[in-house]
């Protein structure tokens, strides 16, 4: 069975009403003492056997972080975070960076199995008889990141033959230092923002992708992030470089155990697209959102940015955000190359006491650049959700266009949805269009569906999926199915 079909099946068998990924894995961990100082950073760097330049880079980030303040402009509220009360390094004991699946702790493999991510490589499915009802799908290469460390990457050989590098970033530092050094921090500088600086100082792993000139990556690449250890911050760093005329589709999934205390997550993702290159980056974010009273959950402060460096390059972000107690996230595109294209498709769901402040930035630098933003916000319970988006047309962005559509759907009357668009147009010939709507799932709609035999929950699911259709259709097929289920699960108990 293809990896994704299995994932889907796991999602389909999920029961009712609680966070299904909330189990904890009992595994021996190598954990750094709590607290953040230069020694912590040196420890991380030496554990990873990093070159001197990278240590210097981290220290520079740390020193600038010390001078920075946590941003307060987002519409999210939480008690102050004590950055000294967090572990900055936790890795499954055993050798860091196993070279093959045989070296991976079996307990870990069981965890991934529970999550529906089979790591065992399968023969290419081409030509293989499939069970009835199964459609043939290309396999997906998976990189699994457990707490701070990447534990296994599948389909390496197939990718290698195509010239694609897909590996943990810590490994790329060892094996492809020239690439990492050239691009790391080139899209999100170490001093970019408070959380990005923190990430640069202490990141421990993440995925690295390099697709050389003219190569279409032969399969979807996927990373599953899993937080497990207690009181541990997770700081992954992902770097994707796609050269001239090359393309890749990358998927990201995230889960964490249920815990009473909040946990910190501050990732950085950098994308670089050269001439005629295209990157499709899809996320289904399902970190533990906290319980129905707002206890626990992940604080998710993420910086994601893509640079369309070459002419006619394209970067497309699609995200389905259902998890986390707090989401602070603005995947952005810097449209530098002439005629380059940026897209942002987003569904953000908040329920119970979740808070999300998410959106995008489209920075149009080159001529004839285009961007599309479709943001769907769904709020239920006592949650609060904000779309915050910036569209900036620089003086040289002649003939550029943006279209933005923001729709909010409210379920119940104790939740909130807000739209905060910032538009800066410094070029007379550039055009920016913005449309926004707010609607509610009405009693009429629910009753109509129920009269036709649907349960209230199925009715909400149907209406919500209809509302999100324009975004879900941008996801790779398998992910779309998963996302639909997830939306429904996230909203269970939100009506009636």
């Amino acid at each position, binding site marked *: 069975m293809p990896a994704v079909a299995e994932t889907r099946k796991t999602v389909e068998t999920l029961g009712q009403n609680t966070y299904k990924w909330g189990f904890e894995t009992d595994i021996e961990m190598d954990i750094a003492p709590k607290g953040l100082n230069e020694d912590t950073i040196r420890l991380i760097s030496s554990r990873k056997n990093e070159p001197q330049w990278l240590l210097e880079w981290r220290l520079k980030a740390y020193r600038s972080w010390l001078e920075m303040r946590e941003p307060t402009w987002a519409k999210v509220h939480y008690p102050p975070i004590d950055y000294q009360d967090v572990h900055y390094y936790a890795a499954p004991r055993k050798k860091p960076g196993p070279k093959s699946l045989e070296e991976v702790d079996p307990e870990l493999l069981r965890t991934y199995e529970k999550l529906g991510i089979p790591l065992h490589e399968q023969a290419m499915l081409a030509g293989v008889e499939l069970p009835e009802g199964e459609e043939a799908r290309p396999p997906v290469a998976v990189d699994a990141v457990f707490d701070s460390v990447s534990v296994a990457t599948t389909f390496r050989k197939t990718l290698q033959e195509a010239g694609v590098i897909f590996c943990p970033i810590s490994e790329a530092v060892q094996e492809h230092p020239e690439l990492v050094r050239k691009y790391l921090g080139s899209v999100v500088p170490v001093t970019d923002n408070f959380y990005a600086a923190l990430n640069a100082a202490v990141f421990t792993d993440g995925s690295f992708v390099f697709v050389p000139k003219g190569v279409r990556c032969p399969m979807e690449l996927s990373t599953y992030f899993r937080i497990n250890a207690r009181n541990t911050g997770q700081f992954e760093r992902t770097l994707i470089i796609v050269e001239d005329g090359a393309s890749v589709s990358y998927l990201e999934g995230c889960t964490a155990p249920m815990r009473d205390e909040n946990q910190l997550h501050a990732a950085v993702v950098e994308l670089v697209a050269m001439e005629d290159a295209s990157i499709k980056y899809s996320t289904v974010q399902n970190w533990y959102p906290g319980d129905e009273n707002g206890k626990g959950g992940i604080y998710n402060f993420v910086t994601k940015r893509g640079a369309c460096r070459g002419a006619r390059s394209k970067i497309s972000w699609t995200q389905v955000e259902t998890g986390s107690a707090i989401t602070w996230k603005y995947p952005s595109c810097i449209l530098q190359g002439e005629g380059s294209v940026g897209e942002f498709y987003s569904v953000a769901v908040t329920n119970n006491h979740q808070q999300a402040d998410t959106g995008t930035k489209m920075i149009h630098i080159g001529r004839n650049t285009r961007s599309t933003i479709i943001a769907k916000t769904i709020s239920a319970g006592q949650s609060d959700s904000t779309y915050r988006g910036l569209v900036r047309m620089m003086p040289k962005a002649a003939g550029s266009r943006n279209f933005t559509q923001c729709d909010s759907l409210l379920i119940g009357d104790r939740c909130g949805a807000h739209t905060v668009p910032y538009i800066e147009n410094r070029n007379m010939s550039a055009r920016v269009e913005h449309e926004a709507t707010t609607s509610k799932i009405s009693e009429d709609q629910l009753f109509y*569906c*129920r*009269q*036709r035999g649907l349960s209230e929950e199925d009715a909400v699911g149907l209406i919500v999926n209809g509302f999100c259709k324009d975004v879900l259709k941008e996801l790779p097929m398998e992910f779309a199915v998963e996302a639909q289920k997830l939306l429904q699960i996230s909203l269970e108990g939100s009506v009636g």
Partner: protein
Amino acid sequence: MSKQFVSINGLCARIDDGEAHKEILRGVDLEIPAGEVHAIMGPNGSGKSTLSYVLAGREDYEVTGGTATFKGQDLLALEPEERAALGLFLAFQTPVELPGVNNANFLRTAVNAVRRARGMDELDAVAFLKAVRKETKHLSMSDEMLKRNVNVGFSGGEKKRNEVLQMRMLQPSFAILDETDSGLDIDALRIVAEGVNSLRSPDFSALVITHHQRLLDYIVPDRIHVMAKGRIIHSGGPELARQLEAQGYAQFLSEAA
């Protein structure tokens, strides 16, 4: 007595209209034997739609008295979707729009939900499509309507036909049609009437709410009831339709007062 019997006794219902309670149904008595089609006529605001909503389980209305049973079950104790599974179908006077929800997908989800609840196998995509094509043809509907979103941008007539399509696909044993004829031209009226008539069988009962005798020329009811001020004030055979058409409701209203 057949188990298909619809039996409504002294049914009272009200709505919370801001502060005050508004009594709408004031003791409705109605019996529909299995296999029979009954019609309800009556002035605007007499409570016809409310009766259909209360029977279908809309929660805005508070039932303050009386009983309603269907196939021997206490209808009022069931959730709306359980009533649907039991075989009750309501063709809405004002069908509801579901933006972004594909009509065919909605229909298939509903059909399978009801089939599951009735202990039947679900229809797969192919079987469903076959079944639905047969019905759309029957109702002279274009397949294109299946691709649109539920009732969004449908004309009045298209919405009504879509209701009849849903009814036929869901195979109810008791259908309430609330002014399904309003806004239909004569050809559409005939098609819709045929859509109901061809379901007529000893296992199917219907309650047809209408203002127009015209519909009852096509769907000839076994009995006609006149509703006013939340009660059934008069009942008669199919000939009552013409009498009402000629003389209006005034005679019964004064009798009732």
